[in-house]
């Protein structure tokens, strides 16, 4: 199977899953922003998703995307370290046009996973998971009271800072990941590379700012 036994095939898997995850982030960010306007509307979104069959199917598909992306990331990194050889250079210099993020995608990815684990504990466990096991009041509030959980989470300044760090790592990860995926899929040349880089930067910034805005607004709401 060329998607596992050729280098371009493995990268195609990374690209396709990566782009799918970027789409997921877009929807997630859009839904979060509902909470900025109306708590009621946001809780309706939470109700609509919850543990309904379509939400569960989507969650499973999403989990599969994450798992594939992560497994391939470790696999590729292991192969790449082996290809580098056993001796390391004594002196290293990063050329000007090489982004820092591009050389640290695995580290950034690991920060994103750690953030995700925290995020699951703060929200998913008390919301979707609580509904799945049929104990909607498990987290203290009702499982579909997403608004309440956002308020609760960002009342804690430590969590707020951790979320911002998480989002910063995500931003670096996306700015390289987006255009890199297009390059791997072959949709690139000397003209498009600048376009894609611009699109990557703008798009990642919009997504991360959307998420960060919700965190900041609710942190401030808790202060007032």
């Amino acid at each position, binding site marked *: 199977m*060329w998607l596992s*036994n*050729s*280098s*371009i*095939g*493995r*990268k*195609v898997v990374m690209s396709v899953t990566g782009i799918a995850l970027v789409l997921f982030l877009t929807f997630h960010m859009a839904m979060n922003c509902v909470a900025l306007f109306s708590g009621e509307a946001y809780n309706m979104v939470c109700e609509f998703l919850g543990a309904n069959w379509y939400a569960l199917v989507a969650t499973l598909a999403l989990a599969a995307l994450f798992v594939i992306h992560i497994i391939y990331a470790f696999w*590729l990194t292991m*192969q*790449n370290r*082996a*290809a*580098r*050889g*056993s*001796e*390391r*250079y*004594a*002196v*290293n*210099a*990063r*050329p*000007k*046009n*090489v*982004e820092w993020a*591009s*050389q640290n*995608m695995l580290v950034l990815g690991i920060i994103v996973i750690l953030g995700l684990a925290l995020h699951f504990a703060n929200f998913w466990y008390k919301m979707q998971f609580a509904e799945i096991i049929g104990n909607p009041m498990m987290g203290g509030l009702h499982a579909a009271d997403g608004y309440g959980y956002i308020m609760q989470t960002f009342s804690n300044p430590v969590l707020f800072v951790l979320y911002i760090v998480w989002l910063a790592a995500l931003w670096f990860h996306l700015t*390289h990941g987006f*255009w*890199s995926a297009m*390059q*791997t*899929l*072959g*949709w*690139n*040349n*000397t003209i498009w*590379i600048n376009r894609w880089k611009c699109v990557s930067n703008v798009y990642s910034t919009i997504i991360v700012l959307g998420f960060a805005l919700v965190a900041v607004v609710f942190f401030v709401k808790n202060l007032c």
Partner: protein
Amino acid sequence: MDKNISFTLKVWRQNGPKEKGHFDTFQMKDIPGDTSFLEMLDILNEQLIEEGKEPIVFDHDCREGICGMCSLYINGHPHGPATGATTCQIYMRRFKDGDVITVEPWRSAGFPVIKDLMVDRSAYDKIMQAGGFISIRTGAPQDANAILIPKPVADEAMDAASCIGCGACVAACKNGSAMLFVSAKVSQLNLLPQGKPEALRRAKAMLSKMDELGFGNCTNTRACEAECPKCVSISNIARLNRDFIKAKLKD
């Protein structure tokens, strides 16, 4: 006239592919600025031979930047600090008096060290043998205008063909990937009408040879194109990806 400089040279010494290597330090005195980097190593080797010591082994041939034999990873850059130049085209005037200059071989599993600074780059020949040629009979040379090729396409093919196969892309890549070389060699043929009929087969054959020889997976850091002495662009890598994916979807 350039000024003379004195500096410390740290050079990687390694007796064979399986031996443990180490750095030797040399004090270089009053080297004229218009000495090329390789001439500076020649001066050092003459001194070493006079002292009855083993000279430093390094690859070189044409010394005018076209053969692709010279290598050397100087102060963290393949082919030294200049852009768009090979090691043999670097002059000592680029360095300052009192500098410490560290010289290492290409380090990659695909390019094992033969001795000191010389590495075995025959992996590139094997990749070329896998598909870097045209196997159809093209007959006697035709009139120049018989096959029309748009100028931008001809230019792109020529830019790809400027790759001298020195291996700096692999040396620069944190993943030890040879994608810039392979993509340039695929592109120089796949762009032109003579290379088109075998384009997809070529992309598949050369890429799987590269994978087989233990080179890494490209993660688009662009270090290769920054360090390439011929400034070959990663748009060639995009073209190789495109051709390879097309070939696999057709299968």
